[in-house]
C-alpha cells in the first residue's frame, strides 16, 4: 500500500495544546513520525529578565498550569544557589508538601487523559473527580487551586494552618483509597492489558540514548530521581528514613508508564504524610533582601521529569539571564524510538504516555518550507529582528536612515 501522511495537529481534538505530529503510515501501521514544536512560544526567558527577583517566581509559575510548583521550585533553588543559603526548617517541610500535592494532581490528570485517549471516559471522569480532593487541599493550604504563589527566594510566602493540614491528611486517606481502586482497575482489566501491554516500548538503551527523564525513563529501568539524587529540603531526611522510594520498573511500555505514575502517587502520599507529621515550628522566610552577583542552577523532579533552571545575576534587581529546560523537551524525541511500527490507534496513546507539556517546552525554532529545522543563535535572532524592524518601517514608508546597517 502507498504510504499516506497523516497530520495530527497543530490543532486537533487529541491535543490540548498546539503541536504537530506528522505520521507516515502504511495502512494502519506507522512507519515514521515527525514532531514539530514551536507553535506556542511566549518568550518567558526574555520576560523574566525584565522583572525583579521577587516578581520572577510569579512569572515562572505561569509557564505551565500543571507544573506551577515545579518551575518556581527549581527557580528559587537557582536563586538560593547564588545566595548560598538554606531556607528555615519549617519552609523546608512546606515546600515538598506543595510539590508532592502537585505531583498527585498532575498524575491523576494524566491518568484521566490517558483513559480518554483509549475511549475509557469513565476513568477520565473518575480520575478528575478524585483530583478535586488534591486541589481542595491545595486551596486550603496555599489559598489557590492552581498557581499557588508559595515560593520565594529564602522561603515560602504563606504558612500552613493546622486546620488545613488536618484537611490534607484526611484528603490523602481518601486519595489513597481512590488510588488503590485505580491500581486495581489497571492491573485487572483484560481489555486495558490488551491495549497497553507491549505498546510503545522504550528500551533502557533508547531511554539513555534519547536522554529521557522522569516517569518516561523510570519505567524503562533508568534509576534516576532528582529528589533522591540531589536531595533538597525534607526530601533528603524522608528518603534516609525510608519513607519513600523512586519507582523503577522494567518493561518500558505504556502499561509500565501508567503503573509507574500510579505507584508514584502512593509515594507522594507517603511524603506528604511524613512532612505534615514532622513539620517543625518556626520561621518560614529567611528574609532575603537582595541577590548578589553570581550564577546558580536549580533542578527539581517535576511530575514529568527533571526541570532545570539557570540564573545569572550581576547584583542588580533583575536577572541577567534565565534559562529554563522543561522535562518534555527531553522526552519528546523518544517518539522516534517508540512510534514506528505501532498502530495509528496506539500512537495517540504513546504520545500521551510521556505526558507531554508543550507550553513548558516551547523554544525558538524556525521551520522553513523545505522541512529542515534551524536552531537560531543569538546573532541570527538579532539579525532577524533587525530585518523585521526594517521591513515594518519600509511598509510604513517612514524609513529615512538605517541605523542598523552595520549589523546586517
Amino acid at each position, binding site marked *: 500500500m502507498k504510504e499516506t501522511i497523516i497530520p495530527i495537529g497543530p490543532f486537533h481534538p487529541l491535543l490540548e495544546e498546539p503541536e504537530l505530529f506528522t505520521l507516515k503510515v502504511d495502512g494502519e501501521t506507522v512507519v515514521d513520525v515527525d514532531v514539530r514544536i514551536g507553535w506556542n512560544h511566549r518568550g518567558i526567558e526574555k520576560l523574566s529578565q525584565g522583572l525583579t527577583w521577587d516578581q520572577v517566581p510569579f512569572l515562572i509559575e505561569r509557564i505551565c498550569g500543571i507544573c506551577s510548583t515545579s518551575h518556581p521550585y527549581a527557580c528559587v533553588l537557582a536563586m538560593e544557589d547564588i545566595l548560598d543559603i538554606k531556607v528555615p526548617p519549617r519552609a523546608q517541610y512546606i515546600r515538598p508538601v506543595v510539590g508532592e500535592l502537585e505531583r498527585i494532581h498532575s498524575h491523576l490528570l494524566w491518568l484521566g487523559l490517558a483513559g480518554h485517549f483509549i475511549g475509557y471516559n469513565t476513568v477520565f471522569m473518575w480520575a478528575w473527580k478524585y483530583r478535586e480532593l488534591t486541589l481542595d487541599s491545595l486551596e486550603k493550604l496555599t489559598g489557590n487551586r492552581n498557581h499557588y504563589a508559595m515560593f520565594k527566594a529564602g522561603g515560602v510566602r504563606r504558612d500552613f494552618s493546622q486546620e488545613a493540614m488536618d484537611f490534607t491528611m484526611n484528603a490523602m486517606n481518601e486519595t489513597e483509597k481512590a488510588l488503590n481502586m485505580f491500581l486495581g482497575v489497571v492491573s485487572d482489566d483484560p*481489555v486495558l492489558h490488551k491495549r497497553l501491554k507491549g505498546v510503545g516500548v522504550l528500551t533502557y538503551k533508547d531511554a539513555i540514548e534519547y536522554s529521557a527523564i522522569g516517569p518516561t525513563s523510570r519505567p524503562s529501568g533508568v534509576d534516576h530521581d532528582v529528589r533522591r539524587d540531589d536531595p533538597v529540603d525534607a526530601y533528603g531526611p524522608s528518603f534516609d528514613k525510608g519513607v519513600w522510594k523512586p519507582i523503577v520498573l522494567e518493561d518500558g511500555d505504556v502499561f509500565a508508564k501508567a503503573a509507574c505514575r500510579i505507584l508514584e502517587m502512593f509515594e507522594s502520599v507517603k511524603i506528604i504524610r511524613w512532612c505534615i507529621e514532622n513539620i517543625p515550628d518556626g520561621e518560614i522566610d529567611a528574609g532575603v533582601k537582595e541577590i548578589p552577583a553570581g550564577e546558580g542552577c536549580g533542578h527539581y523532579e517535576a511530575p514529568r521529569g527533571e526541570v532545570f533552571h539557570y540564573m545569572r545575576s550581576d547584583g542588580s534587581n533583575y536577572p541577567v539571564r534565565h534559562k529554563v529546560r522543561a522535562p518534555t523537551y527531553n522526552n519528546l524525541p523518544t517518539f522516534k524510538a517508540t512510534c514506528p511500527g505501532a498502530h495509528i490507534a496506539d500512537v495517540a496513546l504513546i504520545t500521551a504516555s510521556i505526558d507531554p507539556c508543550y507550553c513548558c517546552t516551547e523554544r525558538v525554532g524556525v521551520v522553513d518550507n523545505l522541512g529542515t529545522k534551524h536552531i537560531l543563535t543569538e546573532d541570527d535572532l538579532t539579525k532577524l529582528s533587525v530585518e523585521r524592524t526594517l521591513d515594518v518601517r519600509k511598509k510604513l514608508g517612514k524609513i529615512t536612515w538605517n541605523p542598523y546597517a552595520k549589523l546586517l
Partner: protein
Amino acid sequence: MAIFYYLIFPGFLFATIAGLLTAWFDRKVTAKVQWRKGPPILQNFYDIFKLLIKEVTIPDTANPTIFLLVPAIALSAASVATAMLGVVNMNWSYTFVGDLIVLWYIMSIPSIMIIIGASASGNPLSSIGASREMNQLIGYELPLVIILATIIFKVGSIGLGDILAYQSVNGPILYSISGVIACIVMIICLQAKLGLVPFDIPEAETELGAGAFMEYSGVALGAFKLTKAILLYTSPIFIITLFWGGIHIHGLGILWAILKYVLFIALFTLIRNTNPRLRIDQSVRFFWITMTILALIAFILMSIGY
C-alpha cells in the same frame, strides 16, 4: 396504511422521537456512572434541530452526489428496519417469507453507507475510518449470522412473525442455555454495529477526529446522527423480538415491554462505560475467534436440545 406505518408509527417519526429519547437515556446513565449531571431530556432534539439549520459544506475532494445521497439512504434504511420490526410486533400476521433476512440486510445498509460516504469525502482520516468500519463489519457479521441461523433452525422458519408465534407457544428462546449464550453474542455484536465503546473504532474521536463522519456537517451529519439514534432504538427491539417474545403493546404488556427495553439499553450503556476502546485488529480477532466459538457453542447446544 403502509405509508402511515413507514412515516409515522412505528416508522420514521416515532422512531426518531424514541431514538432521541433513548440516546438521552444513554447519555444520562453515562453521566450518572461518571459522576456528572448529564444533559436535559430534550438535549438531543436541540442538537438535531441545530444541525438542520446549519450550512452543509462539501469538501473540494468529495464527490458531491454520493457524499450527500449516502446519509439519506442510511436514514431511510434505518427507518424501514424499525418500521418492519414495529409492524411485525404489532401484528404477527404482517410477515412474509424471509423478512428476517431482509431486515438483517436493511440493518447492514447504514454501515455500508458510512463506508461509502467516508470514501467519497476524500479525507485521509475518513478513509481510515471507512477501512476500519469495513473490517469491523466483516468481523461481527460472522458470529451474528451463526446466531441468526441458530434461531432459524430452532423455529424452523425465516419469518419474524413465525419466530414470535413460536415463542408465544413454547416460551421465549432466551429461557434456555443456548438462548442465553446466543443473546450475549448478539448484544456484543450489536454493540459493534452501533459503534459504541469498546467498538467505536471507526470514529475514534481521539485518533481520527470523527473518523468516517469527519467531513459531514449540517443536515447530512444530522441524518447520520438520526440514523445512529434510530438504530440505537431498534437494536434492543431486535433482540427482544428474536429472544424474548417480542413487544406487546396491549394492557400491562407495555410496561413489561418497556422494562425489557430499558434493561437492554442499560446493558449497552454499561458495556460502553466500563471498557476502553479496542484496536481494530484486536476487535476483528475477538469477533472471529471468541465470539464465533461462542456462537457455534450456542448452535450446537440448541441442536442437541438445550
